[in-house]
């Protein structure tokens, strides 16, 4: 994580309409002018940001400002919602994620996702982990793949004696780490997390946060969180979103500011970011 407290005069030189964004040096995703529609409703408008390789990028902002919507564009999960449509460009490394030749199935294999509510399959712990490799036709010793994924997700020691038990018998925190292990088992490049700790107690939350720090050595992580302390604790860069009402009275999610986490939390360049992180948000 970057050090905190670089002092820069708090002036809003660029104005609120042009978000201050710092480009990641080695981007995994480059988002340009992304708007997302549900039918005719433009839920998110004009997002520009980059996701750095082997970094943790946090997305924060009030409910309904489009954080999940943007996150679900990164692995094309929005394709599954009838009427959902992304306009603009997302480059994954150098490839257009929404290009004609791109297979969303392949995208999702490389870009894993962990959901808000732990969603283990109603199968054994082993079968939960083995599911991804199996459907993707990954060859190799399945026992080893399962053990490796569970070890990486810091769950192996807790479950190694009950690997054939139903995953639903695990605690909420263990279930969420199982879901992370399940995502790791297909050897993804990126892991997207949509409020992964919001259903967990503080101890389980700490475990997941520690795990994220471990995982960032091998994976790029994008996390949506409601918890600003969490964003400050774990992330390298933070994107602050909010909902704005346009001239016609329609609410759209906007990216207000995207910067190194240390700057967002000590010296935000936008008044709205500052209000939000200091808890003065209306």
């Amino acid at each position, binding site marked *: 994580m970057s050090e905190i407290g670089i002092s820069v005069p708090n002036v809003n030189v660029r104005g609120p309409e042009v978000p201050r964004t710092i480009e990641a040096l080695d981007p995994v995703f480059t988002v340009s002018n992304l708007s997302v529609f549900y039918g005719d409703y433009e839920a998110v408008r004009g997002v520009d940001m980059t996701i750095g390789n082997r970094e943790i990028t946090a997305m924060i902002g009030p409910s309904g400002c489009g954080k999940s919507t943007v996150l679900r564009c990164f692995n094309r999960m929005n394709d599954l919602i009838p009427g959902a449509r992304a306009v603009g460009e997302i480059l994954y490394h150098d490839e257009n994620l929404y290009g004609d030749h791109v297979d969303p199935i392949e995208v999702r294999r490389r870009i894993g996702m962990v959901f808000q509510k732990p969603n283990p*399959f109603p199968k054994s712990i082993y079968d939960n982990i083995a599911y991804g490799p199996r459907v993707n036709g990954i060859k190799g010793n399945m026992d080893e793949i399962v053990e490796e994924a569970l070890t990486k997700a810091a769950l192996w020691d807790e479950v190694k004696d009950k690997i054939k038990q139903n995953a639903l018998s695990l605690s909420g925190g263990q279930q969420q780490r199982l879901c992370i292990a399940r995502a790791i088992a297909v050897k993804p490049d990126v892991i997207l997390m949509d409020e992964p700790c919001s259903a967990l107690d503080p101890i389980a939350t700490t475990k997941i946060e520690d795990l994220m720090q471990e995982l960032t050595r091998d994976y790029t992580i994008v996390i949506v969180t409601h918890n600003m302390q969490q964003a400050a604790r774990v992330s390298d860069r933070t994107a602050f979103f909010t909902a704005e009402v346009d001239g016609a009275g329609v609410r759209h999610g906007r990216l207000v500011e995207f910067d190194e986490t240390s700057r967002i939390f000590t010296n935000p360049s936008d008044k709205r970011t500052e209000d939000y992180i200091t808890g003065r948000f209306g």
Partner: protein
Amino acid sequence: MAILSTPRSAVQLASKGRPLKEHLFRIALMASLAIALAFLAMLLLYVVEKGWPRLNSMLWENQPSIRRPETSGIQSGILGTLWIIALTAVMALPTGILAAIYLEEYADRTKWYNKLIELNISNLAAVPSIVYGILGLGIIARWLQFGFTVMTGAVTISLLVLPIVIISAREAIRAVPPSIREGSLALGATQWQTIYRQVLPASIPGIATGSILALSRAIGEAAPFLMLGAATLVRFNPEGVWSSFTVLPLQIYSFISRPQEEFSILASAAIVILLAILLLMNSVAIWLRNRYQKRW
């Protein structure tokens, strides 16, 4: 902190006559249940008592006979009913389950033709069974020239239970939480892999339960078979799908319409057999539901 030491709060927590109302409501609920059960018990007692003298092995070992009601059996009816149920299961269950998968997992609900299909299926489930008999007679027996065979009966009964199978299978599929599908798709599984490896295994108990209940409804049907012009007193067993046949409800109907008391006793005994098959199927359904019940 002081809640326990304040006597007033204890007073506020005291009941306000709610238990009495709650009690009355429970009694009303139990009385309704008791009435239903009492009727069922009376019915069962009545047929078992009346049919008792004929509830012996002659019943399933012998064929029906008009001249000797005291030794007449119902073997052709039992086997006819089993043939119809088996063939109906083979035809209606795969079709109904696949249709349910299409409607739940693939169909775009906003398209007019899918809306039309949905509406029609609910309507079809409410169509009286005799109408299916007319359809079977006109199209399957006559136009397709299947005649009055096991095949004609099974196709007609399949059409009758299909909407019920579809509706109950859809309910079972819908009960699988969307988060399971999302979890699977997010791992790079295709839609068909997700359905085949997650949705179907999770909904199989519900689908099986609904299917058995749909088939057990078909067992009791007499109207469509009457409409098809079935012979009521068939003295031989069906030998294949193109063989003619009769079913238990039709045999019961033909026995009851005869004046001799012996036939009325025989009918009661046949009803007991029919009910036994029904109860057996329903208990399999209940067992399946309890055995494989999912918690999420």
